[in-house]
């Protein structure tokens, strides 16, 4: 009996189990969750040609900037605004409270005009310096406008010429308010009344602040998951995850005994490394991604099954525990490598062609394959080696191998 080797095994095993118990919860909570788990909205916008304005690269880039400003004003944590291809923009709004209103805001052109009573446009949105939602003296929600110097002059001119007449403030062709001018306004400030609530006024102010879109934007795709469904999916997937993993763990112990326990400990390390890698890479955990993790655990187990089966074969051929284990690992490695490379190929294709949750699934699957090769082969190997070299038993049964004699007797009886 070599206590030294056994001690090494015990230290590694306890470190992994202890680390798992302590860190698994905070670690899994620290990973960014996809919209399908935390609720939120995924929108695909498309810039479309109109007779007045054709879509070009510059227009799409400017649109992205403007939409970015609008989204940032919503005060969400980690929204995503991304240009996709020639003329599309992807917007993700995690945990957005009123998705309907937010979506409606994204694609609005928000072209602001001040018109005289004959419909002549005197001022536009580009003459604005700022716009803020306010409560007016009459306790109404209004949007307070502040013009830049050019705008202030134009506005003074407009009001001076139209005393006693009606002017109109128009947004995207819709009249917001049409007051009658009482006197010339020279201070460079104005108010838009007519908002139903302070929230409405706030949204209008955001639109005006962020500027108008240079091209027409249409909503091509919208996927919204409410917070209740997101939570429900999360709870259920955690349950399925627990049951699936527990089954795999019990199975390994039943069939491979001590080797199975070692493989299970390596699996614990694997799950931690996977979560750590996802966190480090900023990967998003999605619902299909959780399925990907469960699946990759199945594949990690496959590597161990391949190794242990080879190990058994070598024992039956009469090898000692030590040499059978070394042979098992080195022979199974080629098989595991070849089969995992093919799985990686599928994951790579998914990554390049997929979007959103599917991409998340591909990342999880690919990371899983690579990391599981490390834990299922390297980590298991060293732990088993320490155990076997500690000489605490020579009985192959402990390692999940039926005694050679019984096995050969079966062969004869066939």
């Amino acid at each position, binding site marked *: 009996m070599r206590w030294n080797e056994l001690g090494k095994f015990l230290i590694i095993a306890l470190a992994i189990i202890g680390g798992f118990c302590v860190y698994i919860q905070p670690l899994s909570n620290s990973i960014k969750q996809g919209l399908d788990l935390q609720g939120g909205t995924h929108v695909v916008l498309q810039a479309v040609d109109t007779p007045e304005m054709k879509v070009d690269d510059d227009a799409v880039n400017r649109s992205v900037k403007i939409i970015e400003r609008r989204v940032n004003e919503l005060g969400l944590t980690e929204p995503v605004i991304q240009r996709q291809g020639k003329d599309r923009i992807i917007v993700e709004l995690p945990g957005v409270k009123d998705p309907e209103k937010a979506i409606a805001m994204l694609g609005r052109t928000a072209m602001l005009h001040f018109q005289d009573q004959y419909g002549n446009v005197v001022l536009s949105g580009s003459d604005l310096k700022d716009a803020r939602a306010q409560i007016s003296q009459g306790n109404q929600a209004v949007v307070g406008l502040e013009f830049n110097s050019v705008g202030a002059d134009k506005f003074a001119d407009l009001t001076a010429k139209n005393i006693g007449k009606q002017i109109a403030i128009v947004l995207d062709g819709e009249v917001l308010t049409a007051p009658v001018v009482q006197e010339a306004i020279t201070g460079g400030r104005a108010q838009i009344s007519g908002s139903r609530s302070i929230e409405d006024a706030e949204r209008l102010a955001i639109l005006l602040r962020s500027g108008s879109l240079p091209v027409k934007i249409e909503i091509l795709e919208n996927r919204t*998951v409410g917070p209740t469904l997101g939570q429900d999916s999360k709870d259920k997937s955690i349950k399925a995850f627990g049951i699936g993993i527990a*089954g795999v763990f019990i199975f390994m112990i039943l069939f491979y005994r001590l080797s199975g326990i070692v493989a299970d400990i390596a699996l614990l390390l694997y799950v931690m490394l996977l979560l750590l890698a996802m966190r480090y890479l900023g990967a998003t955990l999605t619902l299909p991604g959780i399925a990907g993790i469960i*699946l990759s655990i199945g594949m990690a187990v496959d590597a161990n099954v391949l190794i242990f089966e080879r190990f058994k074969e070598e024992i039956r051929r009469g090898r000692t525990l030590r040499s059978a284990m070394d042979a098992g690992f080195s022979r199974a490695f080629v098989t595991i490598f*070849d089969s995992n490379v*093919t799985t990686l190929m599928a994951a790579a294709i*998914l990554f390049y062609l997929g979007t959103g949750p599917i991409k998340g699934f*591909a990342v999880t699957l690919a990371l899983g394959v690579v990391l599981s090769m490390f834990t299922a082969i390297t980590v298991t190997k060293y732990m088993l080696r320490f155990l076997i070299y500690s000489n605490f038993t020579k009985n192959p049964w402990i390692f999940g191998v039926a005694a050679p004699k019984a096995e050969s007797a079966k062969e004869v009886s066939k």
Partner: protein
Amino acid sequence: MFSIVKNWKLFFAITVTFLVVGLGSILFRGFNLGIDFTGGGIMDLSFNRAVTVSEVRDVLKEHNLGNSIIQLENVDGEQSSKGVLIRTGVIEETQRREVMTDLKNKLGDFQIQRVEQVGATIGGELITQAVMAIVLSWVLMIAYITMRFEFKFALAAIIALIVDVLVTLSYFSLLHMEIDSSFVAALLTVVGYSINGTIVIFDRIREALKTHRRNESLGDMVDNCIWSTMTRTCYTVGTSLFAVVSIFLWGGETIHNFSFAMLVGFSSGAYTSVFLAGPLWLMLRGKLNA
């Protein structure tokens, strides 16, 4: 020991039967393509009070959406429910918003569980993308297996994979289950996973070929290789299926079809790896006796 190679006709026949039924269904029944492919809208709402299908339909009719599919959730013989799932054809975002405002005004407030709205163009792109992805995966795998083994192994493995994909598609056509974009991910996972089983057996054959003696027929050798990896096949398929079944049973509605596709694909993958891939390889080498 039961010879898989000598009974190849039986296994080929089982495969062909499955494929004929499946392809027949695909041709005549077609697929239940979800809005990811066809375009359209889904509104999954939970109202504050229980509503009936006809109430919802009346509101939809006013927007010319009377032919939408309306499903109530958790109804046990009840005529009304708080949870309502509405499926419409391709509609504009503005129209959908009007419908939802109208629903709120007429039937009371609701919480949004899920809203999905996909334009028709995106759907068409997705089909092209999906087919490209699957075919690309086959091409890459043929290249890799040819490099590591030889071309006939690659061909046999890919034929087995094509069968797996077709069988999965067949089930979805036969059971009329909805196919969405995550189905493509499931199919690719099936491809990536099922190839493993075949590779493990071919790896044995590759190894056995080195020590192969003349007095043993190639068929017997393949049989030996399949049987010597049988424990591994059973254990691995067993644990993976257990994991997939647990996602299928407890993972919730959202991921139901996704896990079902993997369930069918993995089962088919296990079958084709064990019973089809080996004999196919022999056939390609011209060593399969009639």
